[in-house]
């Protein structure tokens, strides 16, 4: 009975979304407050029915009701509980319902939080959110319904189950984190559209959505980093970023969102860059939808999606509609959007932010270009030309380095105009530090972009420490506080600013990690017991090869001793070769899998893969990768999260 209730709830949500839009639209015309209240409640009703529907699907997953197609495909009786829960976003229809679920949570919060404010903006905010909900309701009701019954004329005793290879925690967390980011940008977008509809170009809408934007950005950033972490730990190709279309789909909105996050500071303080900010949030939200589309529709020739589905064209239409309607609105309001304030100088913080916007958008375009290159080349030249990481790296490394430089330059520029003396006073120490670093690095033997990257990192860290120092000494002079008290008070009273600087430190660390990639080394070889081989100055000796049978797989375990070029003991590595479903009579259903072992230090990661085993002769085929500085990427990630939390920390007032 309840699966039907789930489908009916989705139907009702669909109906309510249409009613909500109509009701609120009429309100904007006749100002009858009762219509606003009803429209608002209809919006809450949409969310209520979506919640109901989602909880019903979750319940079906938990009780393993295989009469529902979705439950049978993605779970089995043996699937551990936590993965029955995460199965909600394992498949296409479920993940769309999940998107809708998160959107409904955010819509509910937005409506409830704003019951007594923003009276002018709220109608169109709710209309916009309802339209987005409507889109996903159309998909889940009519195109890909998670409550479809199983198409079989006999009782399904057990479902497909979740591939054990997918059963790890990161796999469960990565999609929801990304979705929280994607969906999170709906709210700022809705406020932007509302501001346009209301001809309200004040900073009111910006102030309302600052925290939302930061939270959505935090989730998007975390989701991306988690994805990289998972790829590195689980997939065994030794890297964390492959410029894959699906990865790029999450990176593009991140770029425009980061630009937006910075640019709204200027609008709040100086009422400039209004057109940029509108354009950036529209782009960000569109790219989020586009990202969802790229991941779920199979349109790109990514190894991860061989089949196209009917979802593709529908998403594309939605994306085009969003772009056309939003930018038309912007065009219609262009005279109100244009700011009377003018940029005064190239060496001002305002122009620094403008340039910042430009570089982020340029990088976004570059990634977009590379991602769509196969489609473009096929349309233009008739042959599909695919592009790989070397292409993306060649284009994006210089742009990334410019961004890194800007991270350091920006904070040192003054508002309106930086006087020559200030320029000299602020930039001398960081530039000298960067130059000295460059000389040292070149002396060590590094070349090209490696030197630039490391030197810029030093430069940026120098500027950030200068900022902290300036802030602390301003306080100690004025209030006579101790350094620690000054530091704490300073950060506490300016959480956005100093939280932001800490995020920048995290970014610098990540750049250091990325640069290590230039020094990656790898080698594949075979070893029998007692044999050794060398890679990048390390010696790898196979001590032992053992076998064991575990509940759902069979494993060969290699015990490899690692020593460095001085003969000192480093560690033991235990990569495994496993076969899942090893007892399955159908040989094709047995799944081999290499379980990696990684020895990680600040300096480098030693990454071991047990590729294959020759049982009869006791030979292990091993692949070793020595990846310097990878740890800095994860450390940078943590610092980024901490910095953002500081910026988000709520104030008493």
């Amino acid at each position, binding site marked *: 009975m309840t699966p039907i209730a789930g489908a009916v709830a989705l139907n009702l949500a669909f109906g309510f979304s249409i009613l909500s839009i109509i009701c609120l639209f009429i309100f904007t015309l006749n100002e009858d407050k009762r219509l606003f209240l009803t429209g608002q409640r209809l919006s809450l009703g949409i969310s209520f029915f979506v919640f109901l529907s989602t909880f019903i699907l979750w319940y079906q997953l938990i009780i393993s009701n295989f009469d529902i197609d979705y439950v049978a495909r993605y779970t089995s009786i043996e699937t551990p509980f936590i993965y029955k829960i995460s199965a909600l*976003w*394992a498949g296409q229809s479920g993940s769309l319902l999940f998107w809708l679920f998160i959107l409904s949570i955010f819509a509910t919060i937005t409506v409830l939080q704003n019951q007594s404010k923003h009276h002018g903006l709220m109608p169109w905010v709710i209309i916009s959110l309802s339209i987005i909900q409507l889109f996903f309701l159309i998909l889940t009701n009519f195109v890909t319904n998670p409550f479809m019954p199983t198409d079989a004329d006999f009782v399904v005793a057990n479902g497909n189950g979740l591939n054990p290879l997918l059963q790890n925690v990161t796999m469960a967390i990565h999609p929801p984190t990304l979705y929280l980011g994607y969906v999170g940008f709906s709210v700022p977008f809705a406020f932007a559209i509302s501001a346009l509809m209301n001809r309200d170009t004040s900073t009111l809408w910006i102030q309302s959505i600052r925290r939302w934007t930061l939270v959505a950005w935090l989730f998007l950033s975390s989701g991306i980093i988690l994805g990289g972490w998972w790829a590195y730990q689980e997939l065994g190709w030794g890297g964390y970023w492959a410029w894959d279309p699906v990865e790029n789909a999450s990176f593009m909105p991140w770029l425009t969102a980061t630009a937006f996050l910075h640019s709204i500071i200027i609008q709040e303080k100086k009422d400039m860059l209004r057109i940029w900010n509108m354009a950036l949030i529209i782009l960000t939200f569109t790219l989020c939808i586009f990202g969802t589309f790229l991941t779920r529709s199979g349109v790109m020739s990514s190894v991860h999606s061989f089949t196209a589905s009917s979802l593709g064209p529908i998403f594309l239409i939605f994306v085009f509609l969003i772009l056309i309607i939003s930018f038309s609105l912007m065009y219609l309001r262009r005279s109100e959007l244009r700011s009377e304030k003018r940029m005064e100088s190239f060496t001002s913080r305002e122009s620094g932010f403008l340039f910042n916007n430009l570089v982020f958008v340029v990088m976004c*375009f570059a990634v977009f*270009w590379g991602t769509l290159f196969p489609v473009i080349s096929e349309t233009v030249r008739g042959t599909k030309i695919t592009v790989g990481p070397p*292409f993306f790296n060649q284009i994006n490394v210089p742009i990334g380095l410019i961004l890194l430089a800007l991270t350091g330059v920006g904070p040192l520029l003054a508002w309106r105009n930086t006087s020559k003396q200030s320029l000299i006073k602020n930039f001398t120490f960081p530039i000298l530090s960067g130059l000295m670093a460059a000389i040292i690095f070149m002396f060590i033997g590094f070349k090209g972009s490696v030197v630039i990257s490391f030197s810029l990192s030093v430069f940026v860290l120098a500027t950030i420490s200068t900022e902290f120092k300036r802030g602390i000494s301003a306080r100690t002079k004025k209030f006579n506080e101790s350094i620690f008290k000054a530091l704490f008070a300073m950060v506490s009273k300016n959480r956005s600013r100093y939280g932001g600087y800490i995020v920048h430190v995290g970014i610098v660390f990540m750049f250091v990690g990325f640069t290590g990639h230039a020094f990656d080394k790898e080698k594949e070889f075979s070893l029998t017991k007692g044999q050794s081989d060398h890679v990048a100055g390390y010696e790898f000796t196979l001590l032992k090869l053992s076998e064991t049978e575990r509940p759902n797989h069979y494993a060969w375990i290699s015990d490899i001793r690692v020593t460095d070029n001085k003969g000192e003991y480093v560690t033991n590595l235990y990569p495994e070769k496993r076969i899942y479903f090893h007892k399955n009579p159908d040989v094709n259903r047995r799944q081999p899998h290499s379980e990696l072992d990684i020895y990680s230090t600040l300096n480098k990661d030693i990454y071991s893969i047990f590729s294959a085993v020759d049982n009869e002769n006791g030979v292990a085929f091993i692949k070793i990768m020595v990846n310097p500085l990878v740890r800095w990427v994860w450390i940078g990630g943590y610092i980024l999260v901490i910095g953002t939390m500081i910026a988000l920390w709520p104030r008493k007032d």
Partner: protein
Amino acid sequence: MNSNKKFTIMIAGVITVVFFWIGWVSSNPKDEKAMASFISVEKLLNDKMKKRTKLGGLVKDGSIIISETNYLDCSFVLKEGAAELKVKYDRSRPDLFKDGAEVIITGQYLDGTFYADELQTKCASRYEGDLRDESSYKLTEIET
């Protein structure tokens, strides 16, 4: 020149530089592995393309031959529809590589053999949802 004009020129300048940069890299990628033409096996055999190409297809059943002397070295036959192509690959093979597997290979064609330096199989473990073999699932009949 008023400052607004200055800024517009700067923005236009940056955009022009960027377009040229992207266009230049697209036409002259530094690394030969940056680009590959994704074509059908049939077209490759007809045109005997020497450029770096990417092909997709299935591993012909029984065609995988692993070298006796070097375990990493293997050859197999790639089948796309009616077209068949002999492939040599000398890196570590992905776990899902076997008879009938769907693969994408990248490399160069020379004198009847395709020398692949990249080989990817339909990656079950990469993305949840897309990875499951959606075409069939365990259906157990209940005896009546």
